[in-house]
């Protein structure tokens, strides 16, 4: 069964064709990073325009790479939220056109749930439950218990900044450019992660996160040290603080839920120190650890198609009536 995936929740337009939920036939991403750099962040109106321009060429190319025509598509999976409303509506309206014209099933997909599905897509295996899921990206830090394709219980989320947002802000402060995550990782490669003592926020205080204090700590460090500040050491120390915090929280969630499997996903899951620290914890505690390769950590439509395939049976409404929802929580009913 061929699932067409469409993703446009933020600043990447993406189209993919995935067979049986686990075999990627084609997966294309049109990034808007350069467009938004001059604004210093994603501008929803500009992003919406670019999604509209990029969508049809991507659709054409994805079909061409997969070597199929429109009539070969069996179902359509599309991100319906959470994300930026204008960009989401472009993808949703594209999907509805095809579903309506060809009378195809359409599966509205939660973007965060799709990030977790990327880990299973990468292993070419269908999801196994239960597992603890950790989604860390530019807009999210969510810790969940997954017990089914759309059965998610949120254990904790960030009270303020997401870790990707933290990296972006610190990178801007240090003059490293945008997006911050890759820049901080690159600079931190030659840094000493123990040079600066940065806080590990909210450890031992439930499953929630808070990363704004870390940002403030780096800001103070920047002011105190002035020209003496070692940027590589700050970057390495910051990544260590984020990794320690996330590893500790994930470990506690695994203990509390008795889950034996951890899935980490989202753009920040591409961060190498974090991946290594999480893998070490899982190996120590006998936990199966699944994390997508970096290319599947950032936003892509292959994960949308995979999650659509895995969750198709849960669609209990007329999907053509679904609307985009900027704040659609994981595991909750489809947005109408």
């Amino acid at each position, binding site marked *: 069964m061929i699932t067409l995936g469409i993703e446009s929740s933020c600043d990447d337009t993406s189209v993919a064709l995935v067979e049986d939920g686990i075999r990627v036939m084609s997966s294309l991403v049109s990034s808007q990073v350069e467009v938004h750099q001059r604004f210093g962040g994603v501008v929803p109106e500009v992003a919406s325009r670019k999604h509209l321009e990029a969508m049809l060429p991507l659709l054409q190319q994805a079909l061409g790479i997969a070597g199929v025509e429109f009539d070969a598509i069996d179902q359509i999976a599309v991100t319906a939220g959470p994300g930026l409303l204008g960009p989401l509506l472009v993808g949703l309206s594209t999907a509805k056109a*095809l579903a309506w014209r060809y009378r195809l099933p359409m599966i509205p997909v939660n973007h965060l749930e799709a990030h977790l599905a990327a880990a299973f897509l990468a292993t070419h295996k269908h999801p196994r439950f239960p597992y603890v899921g950790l989604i860390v990206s530019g807009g999210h830090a969510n810790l969940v218990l997954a017990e089914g394709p759309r059965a998610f219980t949120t254990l904790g989320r960030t009270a303020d900044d997401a870790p990707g947002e933290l990296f972006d802000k610190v990178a801007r402060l240090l003059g490293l450019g945008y997006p911050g995550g890759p820049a901080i990782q690159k600079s931190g490669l030659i840094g000493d992660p123990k040079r600066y003592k940065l806080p590990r926020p909210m450890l031992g205080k439930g499953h929630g996160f808070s990363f704004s204090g870390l940002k403030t700590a780096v800001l103070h460090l920047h002011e105190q040290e002035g020209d003496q500040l070692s940027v590589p050491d700050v970057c390495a120390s910051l990544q260590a603080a984020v990794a320690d915090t996330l590893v500790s929280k994930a470990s506690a969630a695994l203990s509390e839920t008795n889950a034996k499997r951890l899935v980490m996903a989202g753009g920040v899951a591409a961060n190498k120190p974090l991946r290594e620290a999480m893998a070490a914890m899982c190996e120590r505690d006998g936990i199966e650890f699944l994390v997508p390769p970096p290319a599947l950590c950032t936003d892509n439509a292959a994960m949308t198609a995979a999650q659509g395939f895995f969750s198709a049976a849960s669609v209990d409404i007329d999907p*053509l009536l679904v609307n985009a929802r900027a704040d659609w929580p994981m595991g909750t009913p489809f947005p109408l």
Partner: protein
Amino acid sequence: MNYIFIDASSTEVVGQVGTAREFFPFQWNTERNLASRLTRLCDEMLERADLRISDISRFGLGTGPGSLTGLRVAAAFLRTLALATGSPLTPVDLFTWSAHTLASSDVTGSVRLTIPALLNQAFVVDLELPLEMPFVSLSPRLDLPGPAADGRPTYGIRSENRDVARVDPSPAILHDLMQTAAPTSYEALLKALPLYVVPSQAEINLEKRRSRAV
């Protein structure tokens, strides 16, 4: 040749379905919820004309200017349908549509057309009637909503006030425009986009920030 047209430039969404012999205009208040209702509206139009989607051989996109979200929802939907079915997509902006409507009432010469925008502004275009071509290239600008300073007749599209006459784009004129040969190339389809007023608010804000920094 059967067509479906949608103009989602305001919450009062205009639709039209037509055949070679007749046409059926529609208007709905979608209460800013077009995305979830769009396929139902299309079903309603097809049913009224006793057509099936497979009978449609041309699509028409109202390109505005107006509500950017509505315009994009309709554009994404209709562009995809045109691509998937290999059918032409005819972009129809409100100024051109209204200009032809005025010309059909024997209005000639220089006119100004305006559409209310936010913040006591209006989208404005100055035109010579009748238009030389069915479709013309336009660059609307933001200006004050009142009458033209040079005394040319000013018309408010779907709007009026004390100094500005009203013009309502005509379904019959739209039907004629939809019969006009539309470009069928892939490149032409990619160019069928909402009629944006440049610069965008984001670009205006960016320019202000830059000016302050200098």
